[in-house]
């Protein structure tokens, strides 16, 4: 049993044939970096598309207090995203998305702590911090699910005949602003949410592998480090989505 582990270890050392790893990084870590670079291009393209479409629409130039939703101009995000679960009818602009941001940053911190524990061969530590990271990711996904359902379910609008009805956002129309506003919301936060989801799944696989002792046999916890890179990237993208979609 122990012999198998030794063989794997030897193979790893010859992965780069020359015996020395280029850029002092392992093959897997380097490829993860290049994958993340390509993923960064994808997200940049999406966010820049948001910029392009936003700049091609008129901006609202009145005061924030008198703002009303209209498809004539781009909405002010803090007027759109102001709902918090269990606090129905209260205007709490950006509070919920702020909580989501803190959750994701914290899960990134616990991921660093998992990587640090892995470097010390501390299985208990890796298990503990990976579990916190998974929990953070799941909480974030839950928050996003609520935000989407609220966005789709919509806001109460009183029609010309005095009858109130709900109008929600879809890909072709929304009560907040130009149709593209909601379409971009679904695309950008959806694509990010899918990354969070896949990150949670991969985190869970790594947590399981650490738990059954695969990395201990292998002699190192580099997989935790690689998955950590992916998870930090997801956090990094959210930092940009938060600024460009919700703040500006």
């Amino acid at each position, binding site marked *: *049993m*122990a*012999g198998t*582990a030794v063989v794997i270890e030897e193979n790893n050392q010859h992965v780069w044939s020359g015996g020395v790893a280029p*850029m*002092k*990084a392992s093959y897997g870590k*380097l490829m993860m*970096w290049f994958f*993340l*670079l390509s993923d*960064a*291009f994808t997200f*940049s*393209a999406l966010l*820049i*598309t948001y*910029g*392009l*479409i*936003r*700049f*091609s*629409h*008129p901006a609202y130039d009145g005061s*924030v207090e008198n703002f009303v939703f209209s498809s004539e101009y781009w909405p*002010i995000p*803090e007027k759109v995203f102001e709902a918090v679960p269990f606090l129905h009818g209260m205007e709490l*602009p*950006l509070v919920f998305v*702020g909580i989501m*941001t*803190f959750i994701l*940053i*914290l899960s*990134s*911190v616990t*991921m*660093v*702590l998992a990587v*640090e524990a892995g470097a*010390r*061969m*501390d*299985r208990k530590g890796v298990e503990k911090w990976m579990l916190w990271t998974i929990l953070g990711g799941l909480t974030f996904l839950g928050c996003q699910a609520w935000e989407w359902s609220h966005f789709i379910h919509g806001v109460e609008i009183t029609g010309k005949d005095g009858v109130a009805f709900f109008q929600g956002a879809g890909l072709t129309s929304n009560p907040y602003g130009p149709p593209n506003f909601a379409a971009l919301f679904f695309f950008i936060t959806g694509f990010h949410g899918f990354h969070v989801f896949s990150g949670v799944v991969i985190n869970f696989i790594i947590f399981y592998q650490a738990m059954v002792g695969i990395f*201990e*046999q292998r002699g190192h916890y580099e997989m935790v480090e690689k998955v*950590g*890179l992916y998870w*930090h*990237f997801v*956090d*990094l993208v959210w*930092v*940009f989505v*938060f*600024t460009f979609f919700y*703040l*500006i």
Partner: protein
Amino acid sequence: MEQQTQIRVQPVDKKKIQKIWRVAGILGAITTVEFIIAFTIGAGSAKTFLFIALTIWKAFYIVSEFMHLGHEKKSLKMSILLPMLFVIFLIFIMIYQGNAIYEVLN
């Protein structure tokens, strides 16, 4: 099993842990500042500039410390960072293009 490999857990380096939490604190503080700015400063190019500067500051901490890129070899750093110049290029031409579309439509 006839051969039991001894796994030696190394002791915790307190300084390292402290540094991780310090970076976490900085990230939290910058986010809080962004929140304050969102409600105190009126919309305008100054506000936008502040937001972008703070975002890049946060991104620097995440990439450099959490992703450890700041401690990698220079060649690795550059092969990740230099291609991002294309993104900066794309931002400028696409914002310009957006304004051009606006001019045509209105």
